């Protein structure tokens, strides 16, 4: 307990940065993922190729490697410079966007085929049948798995600790300078993560129950 209370500043700063990484990356990943997901079901073949290529490539790249590229490679390219935190957000967003895209696509696949056929039969266009008929229904099916994606994202923010971002995973390194026992610090960090994940899972369960439809 002393370890936590004496170093509350470091813990608070660390988890504040973790939540920042999480929220920004969630926002960008949701945006990019929706675009990529839409590209993957689009009637235009090259768009499908690009979407599929992106998802397959990035999904099979370890996140650590992606961060490695951004943290160590990007600064060497003489492009507008960013801090390590921004670079970590970029890597997290690019990585998570593939999972968002796949979740959305799987969600669209759960809508019964008759819905799409019926909306086409009454003359709706692709955009109309998507936005009025399919997506509102897919949305319900997508919420629980999407929350799982965000839980994974929250846990993945710790990887940034290996690349000079002073978030929750970095608290141990900070406190080892103050001579705190590593195991106690790490167990506290783990406990807070368990609590954060529990909160997200609770939200997930509430939404799941509220949005459930009997088919």
């Amino acid at each position, binding site marked *: 307990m002393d370890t936590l209370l004496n170093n509350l500043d470091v813990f608070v700063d660390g988890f504040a940065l973790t939540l920042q990484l999480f929220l920004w990356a969630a926002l960008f990943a949701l945006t990019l993922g929706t675009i990529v997901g839409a590209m*993957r*079901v689009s*009637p*235009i*073949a*090259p*768009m*499908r190729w*690009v979407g599929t290529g992106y998802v*397959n*490539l990035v*999904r*099979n*790249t*370890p*996140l*650590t*490697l992606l961060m490695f*590229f951004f943290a*160590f*490679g990007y600064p*060497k*390219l*003489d492009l507008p410079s960013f801090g390590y935190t921004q670079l970590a957000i970029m890597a997290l967003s690019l990585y998570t966007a593939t*999972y968002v895209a796949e*979740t959305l696509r*799987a969600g*669209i*696949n*759960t809508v*019964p*085929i*008759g819905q*799409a*056929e019926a909306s086409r039969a009454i003359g709706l*266009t*692709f955009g109309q049948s*998507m936005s009025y008929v399919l997506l509102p229904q897919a949305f319900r*099916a997508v919420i*629980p*798995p999407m929350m*799982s*994606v965000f*839980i*994974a994202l929250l*846990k*993945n923010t*710790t*990887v940034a*600790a*290996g690349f000079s971002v002073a978030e929750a*995973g970095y608290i*141990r390194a900070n406190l080892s300078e103050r001579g705190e026992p*590593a*195991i106690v610090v*790490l*167990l506290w960090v*783990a406990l807070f*993560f368990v609590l954060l994940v*529990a909160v997200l899972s609770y939200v997930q369960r509430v939404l799941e129950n509220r949005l459930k439809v009997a088919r």
Partner: protein
Amino acid sequence: MSNVLFDAPGPRALLRHKFIGVFTLLLVAGILTFIVYRFIETGQFSAAKWELFTFPLVHAAIFDALLATLKAFGLAAILSLVLGLILLVGRVSKHKWINVPTYLFIELFRAIPLLILMMIMYYGLPPLGVTFVTPFVAVVTGLTLYNGSVLAEVFRAGIESLPKGQAEAAYAIGMRKTQVMRMILLPQALRAMAPVIVSQLVVVLKDTALGFIVTYQELLFLAKFYGSQARYDSPIIPAAIIVATIYIALCLLLAGFAKFIEVRTKRIGPRAGKRIKLDGEPPVDPYLADPRALGAQSRTQGA
């Protein structure tokens, strides 16, 4: 190409699609060209930066690092399958005193970030007098605890997806609980979940890269080491390109294997309702589509 989402495009729509398609390709080509241009402009393809990687000694070192990655992956994969089965047995037990602790164990290790788990092993335990924790041990235990817990849930989902009649029939002919599980439920569940299990192994392979942060000397660690050799013009991007190629090739290989199993098992899968097929792939026979694919995939997010 048959697709339920839009009509077969007419001549004008076809022209428009072609136009947008070309535009998309040009845009992507433009982005890629820009990246390659930045690489060239900053000398990433210069001979000086790549000279280091022509030495046979460096080749040998990369090969050793690849072996280290594969060693951690192989051991962690086997151990997490074993742990997953053990946890499954605890999870489906009718006794509360086995059932509840197992449930808590699974939920706990699924909630702790894998990297924190590895750090607890690597930084936390040695000061307490535990001496056998090398980076390798930390990486393998971390991967095993996390993926074992995930796999236990995957196995359980597989068992729950089976028709109830399977277990009932087995009990009716006088089988004991262990026999029902071992001879009836598990073989079918493993078969149904094979694609998901292999996808989870891809996650194990990807997550070995986390070992880099707890100083396990695998591919990424080597890339950082070579990338900071000032005598060879700090070739961090060339090193990353080489390592990335190896990693992505390995993962694609394993993911391809998962896809292969999925296509094979689909032929014998249980009946399912009609589902919309959006890929532009030929529509799959609706009776053979797999209803569990969505739920199962969402459960196997990688760390």
